[in-house]
């Protein structure tokens, strides 16, 4: 065993190289390929998770933006409807007032016309009464007493009529 021969050293070197190649091909390569695949998968999963997170974040932002816009729109719609309602109310109240004024004016006018008509009728009746009285006077005798009586009667009738 103390003798060193070239050939035995060469055999040993070959042995070592063969073992090295065997280790590489059988152990390292196979284990490495599995580990690389696993690492790739993990990287891929991490990447896609990050991507999805970013997408979710963008969507969230988008939604919150939209929500804000919707809020704003809602507020504007509410304020607009409030304004519209108020306008409508004003309009209706104005119209009602106008109509009421018109009715009042009309009523006042009608009342005036009615009063005029009453007045006219009274005047015409008074006229008739005067004519009638004049006729009576014309056909009856004239003295102071009868005139006085006639006068009183006329006044009395006129007062009665006016009532």
């Amino acid at each position, binding site marked *: 065993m*103390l003798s060193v021969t070239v050939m035995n*050293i060469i055999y040993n070197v070959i042995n070592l190289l063969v073992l090295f190649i065997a280790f590489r091909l059988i152990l390292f390569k196979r284990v490495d390929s599995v580990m690389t695949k696993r690492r790739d998968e993990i990287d891929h999963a991490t990447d896609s998770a990050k991507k999805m997170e970013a997408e979710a974040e963008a969507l969230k932002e988008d939604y919150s933006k939209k929500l804000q816009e919707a809020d704003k729109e809602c507020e504007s719609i509410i304020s607009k409807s409030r304004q519209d309602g108020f306008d409508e109310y004003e309009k209706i109240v104005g119209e009602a007032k106008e109509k009421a004024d018109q009715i009042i004016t009309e009523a006042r006018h009608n009342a005036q016309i009615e009063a005029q008509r009453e007045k006219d009728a009274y005047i015409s009746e008074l006229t008739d009464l005067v004519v009638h009285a004049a006729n009576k006077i014309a056909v009856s005798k004239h003295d102071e007493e009868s005139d006085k009586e006639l006068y009183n009667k006329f006044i009395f009738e006129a007062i009665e009529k006016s009532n």
Partner: protein
Amino acid sequence: MMNRVFQTLNIFFERVMGIGCMDIGGLLKELLLEDKVAIHFDFMNGFFDINRSIVISWVIILVLILFMLFITSNMKVHNISKKQLIAELIVEKLRGITYGMLGEEGLRYRDYMVVVLVFIGASNLVGLFGQTPPTMDLNVTASLSLMSIILVEAAGIRKKGMKKWVKSFAEPMAVVAPMNVLELAIRPLSLCMRLFGNIIGATVIMELLKMAVPVFIPAAFSLYFDLFDGLIQAYVFVFLTSLYIKEAVE
């Protein structure tokens, strides 16, 4: 000459220490000088003879390959089996050990160091199965250290380029250049002899123990000399080679 040395040693042990009955000289002779040729070729006067250590190495390599084939069969990315877990664990841990010694710069050499670690470790553990460890053959340790020094220098040349590599012998001062050149031979020699000496030392002590106390005690000591020491020596060999590589690529 060797025979005379052993005879003297034998006489020393016999006369001075009174343990001649153990025949230490005979034991050393058996371990070191015995004809260890396993396959003999008549061609070129036995130039191509194959030692027993080579044959044992083949068996070790075969067992390792079969083991690797077993643990790496049917590998999956998900829902891995226990043997795949073992395979991944072995690769990760062994690479972790060698990476820790080599550093980032020597990353490409870590797989070779793993192979050397496993080979020396397995070779040293063969003693547990009653076989002579291949690392007890100087040819094996010499070839391992030869490969190591080639790797170290190749790593240095690869990293620095030929010119800078040659210049690096004169660093830090030109005076130390001869020492640095000598290191080219000293490093592999020390690697080779350390491993060889430790393994043969452990084997000799184990054999002596077996002679002195045949029962119980050798089993307990075998735990240290065959198991622990063998793995420590594998680690030391790889550690030193990694250290040299790290030094070369820095």
